């Protein structure tokens, strides 16, 4: 019970009625999605047992052959999913439905690439160089997010529209102009895309013999800081107050003196800055340059990650690990004669069931709460007690 209480405090920082629902709903969704996925495989005449064995065997989530490699790859991709997931969660907590992590991720990536190879910075020592890069990445991504926030606050343009547009703007600006124009690598080097970043800009490896670098450590710190920001600071207090009221057009935080317009822009800045971190991770830890054709999608996967994680930092972290694992194990499912896109089906199913969470919640409540109520009925009476002065 004690452990549960501590877990709850870390997870929510708040006492919540049926708080365990927030954990039970995603777990149930994942479980049901795996079962439905198994039915899909079975209906095509293949073995679900074998498929899952290969999938999870190579996911880095459970020990097995080459576990060290899989584990490292899993954490490497998870850190990016967690970054974009946290970005979505921060905005969502503030009542903003930001689809912009994709564009912010790209902006972060191109910024990291530039400050990674640009001359005056390339001669700095690693620690300083990385610090400069990350600061610039977060500022650039933050601004990209803040544009959408500002447009919402000042002009009332819905963030879904602006973030989607900014995604495209970022993509074309980077791929069709920067990478093929001003930031193109020297032709003689035979490199397409941007030049490679200097050695001092590469993220230090933390597990020998693998590609695993400090990005996972950075994102753990960022996830903790996100939780701290949301639940322990006045800024987070205001973001959450806004999140509960903004979509219903309610004015309580504003009437209490919260500058809602400023908070919208700031929340989108923070969200964009965190998403951009993911872009820095992929450049400084995996690709080391911005390639001519960038395989994106991390921003959109971040939405799924955040939804599975119930928009809570710890939840996003765990969901990011899960999705990272599924993606890492993806190639291995081919051994069971199943296309490697199969894990995306699982991911989609999980999100679909999360979207049905009201139903799942209802069913779970029926299953668990009835019994509990019988034991406490006649206890506290929240709604029945009404006003009146005690003598």
């Amino acid at each position, binding site marked *: 019970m004690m452990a549960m209480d501590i877990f709850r405090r870390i997870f929510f920082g708040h006492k919540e009625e049926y708080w365990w629902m927030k954990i039970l709903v995603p777990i149930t969704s994942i479980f049901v999605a795996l079962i439905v996925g198994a039915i899909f495989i079975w209906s095509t005449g293949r073995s679900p047992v074998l498929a899952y064995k290969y999938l999870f065997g190579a996911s880095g989530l459970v020990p097995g052959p080459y576990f060290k490699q899989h584990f490292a790859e899993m954490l490497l991709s998870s850190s990016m999913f967690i970054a974009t997931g946290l970005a979505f969660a921060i905005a969502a907590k503030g009542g903003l439905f930001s689809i912009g992590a994709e564009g912010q991720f790209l902006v972060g990536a191109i910024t990291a690439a530039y400050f990674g190879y640009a001359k005056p910075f390339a001669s700095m020592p690693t620690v300083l160089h990385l610090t400069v890069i990350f600061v610039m990445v977060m500022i650039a991504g933050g601004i990209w997010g803040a544009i959408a926030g500002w447009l919402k606050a000042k002009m009332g343009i819905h963030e879904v529209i602006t973030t989607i547009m900014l995604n495209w703007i970022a993509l074309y600006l980077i791929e069709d102009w920067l990478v093929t124009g001003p930031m193109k690598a020297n032709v003689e080097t035979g490199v397409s895309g941007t030049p490679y970043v200097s050695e001092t800009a590469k993220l230090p490896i933390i597990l020998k013999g693998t590609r695993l670098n400090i990005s996972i450590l950075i994102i753990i710190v960022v996830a903790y800081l996100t939780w701290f920001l949301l639940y322990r600071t006045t800024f987070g207090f205001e973001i959450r107050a806004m999140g*509960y009221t903004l979509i*219903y057009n309610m004015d309580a935080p504003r009437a209490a003196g919260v500058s809602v317009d400023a908070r919208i822009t700031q929340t989108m800045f923070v969200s964009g800055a965190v998403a951009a971190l993911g872009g820095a991770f992929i450049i400084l830890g995996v690709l080391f340059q911005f390639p001519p054709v960038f395989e994106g999608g991390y921003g959109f996967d971040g939405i799924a990650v955040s939804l599975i994680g119930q928009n809570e930092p710890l939840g996003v972290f765990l969901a990011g690990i899960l999705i990272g694992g599924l993606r890492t194990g993806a190639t291995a499912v081919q051994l069971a004669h199943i296309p490697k896109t199969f894990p995306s089906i699982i991911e989609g199913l999980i999100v679909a069931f999360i979207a049905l969470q009201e139903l799942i919640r209802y069913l779970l409540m029926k299953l668990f709460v009835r019994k509990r109520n019988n034991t406490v*009925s006649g206890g506290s009476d929240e709604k029945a007690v009404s006003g009146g002065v005690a003598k």
Partner: protein
Amino acid sequence: MKALELKGITKQFPRVLANDHINLSIEKGEIFSIVGENGAGKSTLMKIVYGLYTPTSGEIYVFGKKVNMKSPHDAIKLKIGMVHQEFMLIPRFTVTENIVLGDEPRKGIVFDFKRAVKEIREISEKFGLKVDPLEKVANLPVGIQQRVEILKILRRGAEILIFDEPTAVLTPEETEDLFKTLRALKKDGKTILFISHKLKEVMEISDRIAVLRRGKLQGVVKKEETNERELARMMVGREVVLEIPRVKVERGPVVLSVRDLAAKDHRGILKLKGVSFDVHAGEIVAIAGVEGNGQMELVNSLIGFTRPVKGKIILNGEEMKLVTPYNVRRKGMAYIPEDRKRRGLVLPFKIRENIIMGQHTLYPFSKGGILNDKVINQFATKQVEEFDIRPRDIYISAGNLSGGNQQKVILAREMAMKHNFLLASQPTRGLDIGAMEFVYKHLIEEKKKGIAILLISLELSEVLGLADRILVMYEGEIVGETVPEKTNEEELGMMMLGIKRNERLVQ
């Protein structure tokens, strides 16, 4: 003949016993009222009668026949209709379309609009409920919208009509009209169930009155054999002081000055047309008026939600150049909003969070932008105790509290804030007597502390009971100023309708 009989109706919600063995029998053709505080179980009981809830135990008889309702559909078949507090109308549809929706007259498979209009004209005439069948509902005043709701259930052949707090949204004139309608319906042999917590209205309209308190039936009384005081006592469970005690406080210096203030509403229509007044320390100035005569724009200008078109707001001797909620609050303004659910509270937030909202950036609740949970909890626990917020659990979401307790959370917050001016905008709206009394007590407390109070109210009894000075607002202007000793409800009512102007003060 009994129209409706309830035997031992019990409704158990998780953690709440909403109705506890209620026995009622209602005669055909009577107006039967059910009164009780917010959360006493009136609405639950009516939802059971209308088939929205199934009772945990108990039996319902309609016209002598035992029934088992599973949904409102069953209720409609049994000729029971309900006019909800919030109307279920589609604004963009015409009156006719709204009334026939779900049971449209057809010509083959096509909706026969002409016949529908004719039908509406007929029932509208039959019951004396005048409406224009072709008008869009969005263009109708609330009173007429309610009429549309009534016609809707009458068209379905309702014999038992349930009205859930129908006057809550109406102006006094509209209420009068509604009462005329109710009497006409009664004459026609319809049975009416009238839910309210406004005792004055209940005494005016009912034949018999049932009182609920905390889910239990306290008794059924005939109107002739009771009075407001007794009903209030039954409702609250103790003697209630309906009269507000007069407190004399030495008037201090001017705290708020408003000069020639004008403001537009959200649609850009000039609703506040240049008002000027002062509020002194230790004084309650009341603004009386029918809703929609510029009060909202005045409040919005003062709190910084609307930028005034012209005029000055001077708070504590300082002209407020840029009025924002943050600025005015730092300059000493506390605000009890008219709509506590939208403007006062963040409903999913816990009591502990709502009770510091607005002060959360100040020491000791936070330091360097980091919240101090320990101090917040201590403060919340203290305020919950002091303001008698029930239940005494600072971790309960504000949305789970009754209206009275929600208002107490707001009071506990605003009173604790450093202020010398209080803007109380309809502070008792939708509250039951017990909670009303609580609010009055605290307003008087504030006055004793020397706080300047601007009270905006639609309730004349409240204005007359609390105010030291009364300003009457009509169509965005102050048309009269008076003191409670020198006026009465009739005179104020005339001024509020723009019939009589107090020339002495309006040059």
